[in-house]
């Protein structure tokens, strides 16, 4: 009990900023030393299961027990959560986290490379663990992210990172998990005036289709190249694609409209890729096809405007539920980097429009882990998985009650302080506010 109280005090101190350290002195936590047992909590496993008044134990970074009466390892430190909610750490897929710091300042932007075909480019090496944005995500319960390159058509590989690290090597959770293909938009220009001004008049759909054909030609050469292990002249681009053909990497196909999705699936089929649709604003129109082809979807944020003015006003809010109903494996994403801290509220909205709360939770935890290929080690609170855990005083999916009090990454208790909390303290101090 003494220890438990101590932790409470430390935690409160961190929250109230009595120590008033700058973010520079928010240290990444060392590896889990002591076994922990969180008790008296509502445990949202992430797979749909909810354990009321349950406990969860973890040691050496791994979950050792979960359940109504789960016991910790001998000598485990016990934390009484007094009815709080325990969730798997939330995972932000398809983000530019750590690749940009100030969007309008070009020198801080490292997410978009020049050139159409850059499969050898790696996002991981540019991931900045010292970004001030990262801590604002952790404090809302987001503990893992996929950091993704953009630019051109084939933009390179993403990696999954954990959000408490000294450098990108420490951060790497799954390195180079997949290639990113940005499909050219297959939508004609609707401005005939502007189209007519261009000489010769441009047909954007035709141009896009030509680009896609060029990509296929490129992939065919890469496929042939991959048949031979040794080449007199090494082609780094083709080398970078080898794991795509062996399915060690996934192909993330960023697109929104039906024709783009269908062509994306077709590319995946031609080359036997393990493909994922990213975006998928119109995926609800082809949910059955996605289900049949077993193509998962990283769905763009529900907090979006409908694609057309005739669409149902709540279409983006309910797309997730439509995919769920059709049996498509999907997870929910949010655009950008700083915006990620609202990711679980995107899931909350999807829940208001048709998902159950636990399905909505899965859409930012277990489903995401499955799609990113990390579900063996994370995504749910199951024995043997990494202890990636967020504790919230209230419903984590609702902004009015999301209040993260503890977070653990691989069993390490993460400091929940961030620059914004520190500035909050600074000015509460100035005005004498409580």
């Amino acid at each position, binding site marked *: 009990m003494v220890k438990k109280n101590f932790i409470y005090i430390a935690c409160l101190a961190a929250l109230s900023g009595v120590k008033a350290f700058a973010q520079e002195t928010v240290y990444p936590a060392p590896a889990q030393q002591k076994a922990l047992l969180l008790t008296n909590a509502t445990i949202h496993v992430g797979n749909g299961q909810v354990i009321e008044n349950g406990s969860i134990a973890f040691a050496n970074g791994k979950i050792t027990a979960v359940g109504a009466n789960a016991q910790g390892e001998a000598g485990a430190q016990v934390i009484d959560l007094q009815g709080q909610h325990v969730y798997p750490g939330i995972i932000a897929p398809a983000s530019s986290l750590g690749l940009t710091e100030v969007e309008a300042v070009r020198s801080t932007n490292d997410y978009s490379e020049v050139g159409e075909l850059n499969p050898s480019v790696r996002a991981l090496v540019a991931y900045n663990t010292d970004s001030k944005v990262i801590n*604002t995500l952790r404090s809302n319960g987001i503990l893992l992210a996929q950091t993704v390159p953009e630019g051109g058509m084939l933009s390179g590989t993403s990696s999954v990172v954990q959000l408490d690290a000294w450098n990108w090597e420490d951060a790497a959770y799954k390195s180079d998990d997949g290639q990113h293909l940005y499909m050219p938009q297959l*939508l*004609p220009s609707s401005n005939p005036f502007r189209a007519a001004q261009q000489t010769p008049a441009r047909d954007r759909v035709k141009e896009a289709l030509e680009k896609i054909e060029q990509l296929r030609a490129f992939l065919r050469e890469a496929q042939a190249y991959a048949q031979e292990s040794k080449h007199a002249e090494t082609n780094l681009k083709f080398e970078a694609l080898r794991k795509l053909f062996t399915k060690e990497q996934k192909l993330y196909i960023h697109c929104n409209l039906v024709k783009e999705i269908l062509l994306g699936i077709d590319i995946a089929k031609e080359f036997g890729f393990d493909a994922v649709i990213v975006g998928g604003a119109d995926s609800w129109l082809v949910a059955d096809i996605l289900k049949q082809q077993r193509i998962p979807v990283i769905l763009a944020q529900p907090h*979006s405007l409908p694609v057309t*003015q005739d669409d149902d006003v709540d279409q983006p809010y309910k797309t997730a539920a439509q995919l769920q109903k059709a049996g498509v494996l999907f997870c929910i994403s949010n655009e950008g980097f*700083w915006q990620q801290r609202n990711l679980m509220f995107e899931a909350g*909205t999807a829940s208001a429009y048709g998902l159950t709360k636990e399905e909505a939770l899965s859409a930012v935890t277990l489903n995401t882990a499955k799609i990113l290929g990390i579900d063996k080690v994370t995504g749910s609170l199951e024995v043997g998985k990494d202890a990636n855990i967020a504790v919230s005083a209230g419903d984590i999916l609702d902004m009015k009650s999301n209040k993260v009090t503890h977070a653990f990454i691989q069993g390490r208790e993460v400091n929940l302080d961030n*620059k914004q909390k520190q500035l*909050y303290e600074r000015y*509460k101090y100035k005005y004498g506010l409580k």
Partner: protein
Amino acid sequence: MEQPSVPIPTVVRSRRIKIIYLLFAWLLAGAYAKAQETFPVNGVSDPREGCFALTHATIVKDAATTLQDATLVIRDGRIINVGPGAAIPKDAVVIDCKGKYIYPSFVDIYSDYGTQAVKRSSGGFRAPPQFLSNTKGAFGWNQAIKSEVQAASIFKTDEAKAKTLRQAGFGTVLTHQQDGIARGTGALVTLADEKENKVVIREKASAQYSFDKGSSTQNYPGSLMGAIALLRQTYLDAQWYKNRPAKEGVNLSLQAWNDVQSLPQIFEAGDKWDVLRADKIGDEFGVQYIIKAAGNEYQRIPEMAATKASFILPLNFPQAMDVEDPNDARFVALSDLKQWEMAPAAPAAFEKAGIPFCLTADGMKDMKQFLANVRKAIEYGLTEQKALDALTKVPAALIKADDKVGSLEAGKLANFLVTSGPLFKENTILFHNWVQGKRYVLNEDGWTDIRGTYTLTLSPGATYTILVKGTPVSPALLLLQQQDTLAGTISVDGKLVRLAFPLAKRSSRTLRLSGVLADQGWSGNGQDTSGNAVKWSAAFAKAFAAPADTTKKKTSPDIGKIYYPFNGYGWETLPQQKDILIKNATVWTNEQQGKLENTDVLVRGGKIAQVGKNLPAGNALVIDGTGKHLTPGVIDEHSHIAITRGVNEGTQSVTSEVRIGDVLNPDDINIYRQLSGGVTSSHLLHGSANTIGGQTQLIKLRWGADAEQLKFAGWDPFIKFALGENVKQSNWGESQRSRFPQTRMGVEQVLTDAFTRARDYERQAAGKRRDLELDALVEILNKKRFITCHSYVQSEINMLMHVADTFGFTVNTFTHILEGYKVADKMKQHGAGASTFADWWAYKMEVQDAIAYNASIMSGVGLTVAINSDDAEMARRLNQEAAKSITYGGMAEEDALKMVTLNPAKLLHISDRVGSIKPGKDADLVLWSDHPLSIYAKADKTIVDGIVYFDRERDLELRKRIAAERNRLIQKMLGEKKKGAPVQKAKPTKDDLWNCEDMESGHQHSIINGDDEQ
């Protein structure tokens, strides 16, 4: 045998025809033109008076007067006599028009005939700024004001274009250079193939305007509201210039502006709302414009009628689209599908409403379609008489040229059409279009109707009976024998004819004859079926009995209903106020009594009448609120929805003259979408591209209302200011480095300079030049207009308050204000309020210190704090954004809700009307399915002024209606394609979607509004 009814009179008079043919050859060579007195002649002069008499015609003098068997006499390009008994001068060339109709040629008063399209020479988004006009000469400051341009001076006849217009039936057009906002004068010209000097019949016939700056490379105006402001200011400047103020020097643009004011004023509108915008400017300056319409005005007929304007309606009806591919058709909005179906009914709608209008060929891609489209408009309900009026007399009268053209009367120009029958009948042929007394043959074929039975004699050979049938234009030949009727061919080329037919059934041999259509009959030579030479003649035996016209009179096609607004989610009839009783809800009053459980709210006459328990319903519509929450409507302090063609007039650092209220777009789907998120009022702001932006507009989301009815009546006017990176163009690229200011130091100077000028201006004596920019600033100085200022960092916030203190006014609201928490105490002292984002940051340098606790701190210090959207998507869930302050800073729930209801009302000075649930206030309410600050809450019903504008159940009905109506129209379009009608590619519909600044990642970008510039 008498031949009065025989349709071959011209054969009898063929000698005259020959002469006419010769004449016509001269016409084409251009030698006939009576030379102008001052012009030298190369060769022997050839003066002619061109006297013609067209006899025995059905003459339609105007739509109301038709003369039978009448004569039209012309001389020197004018009509000298018209009537059944008109005397034929001895020197007249007589043309027998028996069976023919004569109409006045059409008049088009919206044309650019003979002017050159003006190309924009440079400019563009990435070009360096151009602050002043590039026009050479002592003209005004703005390149889009081209009052000095005179169509008559730049006009050059263009025979190729004239020909296509004549073929469509036009004889006269009012042409002007379609470039710029003030476009100078239009010239009334005929379409004769003559020297410019002869065809210009009125050199200054109109003054022309639009909202489109055209080829101007100058930055200002960069938006529709800027164009409107420029027009207003120019009206004022021109007035002022009448006294030749020495300060101005010579300003030929203003001089010309004044000179053309007495002419008919024609305004080109871009759509139905533009019509109302133009008319409003006209009303302000005592001008009644003639409106050149865009084609969707029928969607708002009552508003159009209220303008009292006359309209020039286009007939370039949209082509059907190829909607076979459902994935393409998806992006065509129902509003565009409906526009395709309904556009041809526009003239009929104007006629029905009694709105004066004429028709124009402007915008027609294929002039051959013009008359077809007139006929289509008639099929859709336009009367033939009105159609003819709208093509002749009305346009002529509108520009006061009905003394010259538009009807067939002595003294007017000899501009007329000779047709085979009633003009608007489907198969009627236009034979001639006479312009200024000269005949232009549109169709030669069919003038002479050779149809009938003939006796054909071959020599050597037998005698046969042949029947010429078919149509006058394409006759067909039959050989009539005892048993058989054998088909042959006949081909007429002017006076030459050839015949070919077999003499026996199943014979492979053909008799071939060639010859001339002579007075006495037809004759010539040929070869018989064996190849032997023959000569032949044919004598007329019997007239052709045309089969009765079996074509059914077309009934007006069925078309869908007009929606208000014209959008899939629009109303078929606008909703009416009703008394409403919301029963047994949890009522968040925002008043002292706080949150009331199991409470009723009675709405009467659009106001909240009573709040209490177990209120009697009376006649009120009862809405069960059990388990639901009722809150005041959400008020968005910072919105950019429902704005047309530009939210920023960011081309100068001070643009206080522009007004968002001028450019409302009541059709914006985001109004409806935001109602679905509980928004009832939105403060529509100018963008943040310049320091002193434009005047803002507060609206209520009365979906279906027009622009004026959207406006929140009786509010205190506001204006948008901005500070920081946007106004100093920090993120605009290397080419934008010359507009002052480029630093926050300069921003202070822009403000100080503007208010100093305003103060000095206010003190100037009467007779000063009225300056709309300074008028708005004087209003701020006098506390008649209030500022909402886009701002981020503490230094600039502090600076603006100092400037305001110096000039003795208060900054009403700082918007965005992401570092407000750093200077909240100073803001409190100054008296400013704050309207902020819940948690945006990191999108640019000046938001690095933005924190999600900002609202909580500012509230804690005692500021009035609102949470705004600045974003069409986020505005749909401002309740959630407010809820974030519960998490970030522990704000009380009721206080959080106030940040999107009562507090913005206070900031906007309307908290006596809206923002809380209190008897006497406007019934702007939202019934939520759940706790209103919860992510799980949906707005079930959104009520504005006691009218349920959004109802989740009705919304489901609308979805069904949209699906059904879309399918009906898509099937109809597919039918068009199947019929072989030309179709265009399916064209995605795009919406205006604006936000304050385009550099921010937080803003929602529409997927289908992608950037076309790339």
